[in-house]
């Protein structure tokens, strides 16, 4: 059996020829870059794919290339327009010519690129991430966290190679107010492929020891501002949004805010701005403390002053009261004294009166007594006078005395006795016969 056959090369050359005839035009196609690499000659080799509507299943795949002379122009143009480098996962609209080579197979040679398509796609993805975060209900979670006071213990996620990190630490620690910041460094890749995962990894580490920090600073010091797509990725943004500590970003790019910036508690443009913000927060805290201190001081002064004047008033009124009381007592005493004096003088007067009266009475009594006695005496005198020998002698009687004794009877006398007769005007002796 003889079968007609041609060599592989003949077949492939035929395909090459047919294809060149049939697909001589250039075509604008939409595809996703799944692989991309530059070689030393300046050519760029890619793999373009298309996925189904679910975004999971690859339904078309082709090699592609951008030859060095084209790539030299397309690359800066694309970066200038989109702010991004061509990279895997990126959707592009490119103008290609197709060719088939017996040795290298099918290839799309990229002649031109439409950056607005990629921009639109990135914007759509970004929008999609934002919508998803809002739908998940986590959009505001980090943004609404209160910044703790004082804000001193900062976990810092940045690249270990970032020159800006040293400046940032310097700026923070040598603040002229003398605030103490405690910083801990968590290294991560801050841009390009793997940045999102690397930052999420660092956040996980911080999460495990979250009590030790007041906030997280995600900073990216200097470097090209390309390839910051990580900060628009849903996973990283979702991780930041739900993080329990406030996140402060200083990613440093000129274009619109990234999604991470949007969900972060505080967004600063640069690491320098983050440091300034942290110091500012401390200024506020310190101001607040100073105000409290000053109002306490003045309130206590006032309190003491009031208490002092109250005391003085009390003391004053006390002394006034004492004076008043003393005056009243004095008056009362004087009144009592007056009363007593009056009573006493009244009493004295009465007594005197009575004494006087008694005196008069006594005098009268004595007088009358005396006169009575006198009268009595007079009577007695008279009687005595009447009875006295003189009185009797005057009347003519005489006394006969014998030997010194009064003779009361004639019988006492004998003849011859000498008697003495006493008369009022003298005596005469006689002899009895």
């Amino acid at each position, binding site marked *: 059996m003889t079968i007609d056959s041609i060599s592989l090369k003949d077949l492939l050359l035929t395909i090459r020829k047919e294809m060149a005839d049939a697909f001589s035009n250039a075509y604008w196609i939409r595809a996703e870059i799944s692989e991309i690499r530059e070689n030393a000659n300046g050519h760029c080799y890619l793999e373009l794919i298309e996925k189904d509507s679910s975004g999971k299943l690859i339904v078309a795949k082709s090699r592609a290339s951008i030859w060095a002379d084209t790539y030299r122009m397309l690359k800066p143009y694309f970066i200038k327009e989109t702010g991004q480098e061509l990279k895997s996962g990126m959707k592009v609209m490119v103008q290609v010519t197709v060719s088939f080579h017996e040795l290298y197979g099918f290839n799309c040679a990229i002649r031109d690129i439409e950056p607005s398509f990629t921009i639109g796609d990135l914007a759509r993805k970004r929008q999609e991430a934002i919508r998803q975060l809002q739908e998940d209900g986590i959009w505001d979670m980090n943004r609404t966290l209160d910044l*703790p*006071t*004082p804000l*001193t*213990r900062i976990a810092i996620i940045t690249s270990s190679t970032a020159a800006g990190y040293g400046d940032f630490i310097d700026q923070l*620690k*040598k603040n002229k107010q*003398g*605030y*103490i910041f405690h910083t801990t460094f968590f290294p991560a890749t801050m841009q390009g492929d793997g940045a999102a995962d690397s930052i999420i990894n660092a956040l996980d580490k911080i999460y495990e020891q*979250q*009590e*030790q*920090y*007041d906030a997280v600073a995600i900073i990216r010091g200097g470097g090209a501002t390309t390839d910051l797509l990580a900060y628009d990725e849903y996973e990283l943004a979702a991780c930041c949004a739900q993080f*329990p*500590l406030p996140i402060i970003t200083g990613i440093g790019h000129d274009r619109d805010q990234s999604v991470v910036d949007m969900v972060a508690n505080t967004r600063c443009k640069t690491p320098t701005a983050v440091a300034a913000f942290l110091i500012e927060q*401390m200024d506020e*805290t*310190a101001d*607040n*403390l100073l105000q*409290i*201190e000053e*109002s*306490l001081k003045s*309130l*206590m002064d*006032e*309190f*003491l002053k009031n*208490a002092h004047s109250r005391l003085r008033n009390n003391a004053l009124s006390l002394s006034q009261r004492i004076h008043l009381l003393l005056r009243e007592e004095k008056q009362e005493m004087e009144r009592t004294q007056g009363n007593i004096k009056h009573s006493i003088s009244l009493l004295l007067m009465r007594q005197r009166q009575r004494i006087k009266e008694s005196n008069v009475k006594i005098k009268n009594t004595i007088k009358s007594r005396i006169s009575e006695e006198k009268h009595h005496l007079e009577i007695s005198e008279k009687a005595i006078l009447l009875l006295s020998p003189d009185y009797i002698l005057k009347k003519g009687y005489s006394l006969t005395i014998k030997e010194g004794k009064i003779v009361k009877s004639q019988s006492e006398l004998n003849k011859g006795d000498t008697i003495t007769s006493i008369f009022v005007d003298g005596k005469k002796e006689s002899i009895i016969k």
Partner: protein
Amino acid sequence: MAKKTNTYKESISELENIITELEENQLEIDDLANKAKRATELIKFCKEKLYGTEDEVNKILEDLDKE
């Protein structure tokens, strides 16, 4: 969240309470000395949180001298 932070916050709110008591004349003269002492302690504590303890400050000053 963090224990230390709460303590600062608590200190501030305690200080604010003392201010309120003073403003509303709720304090007795007997309490004043105690409250003043307490306020001084709290302010010292808060300042240490912001400016570090004396040791820390001295260390920083030393570091600055070295440079």
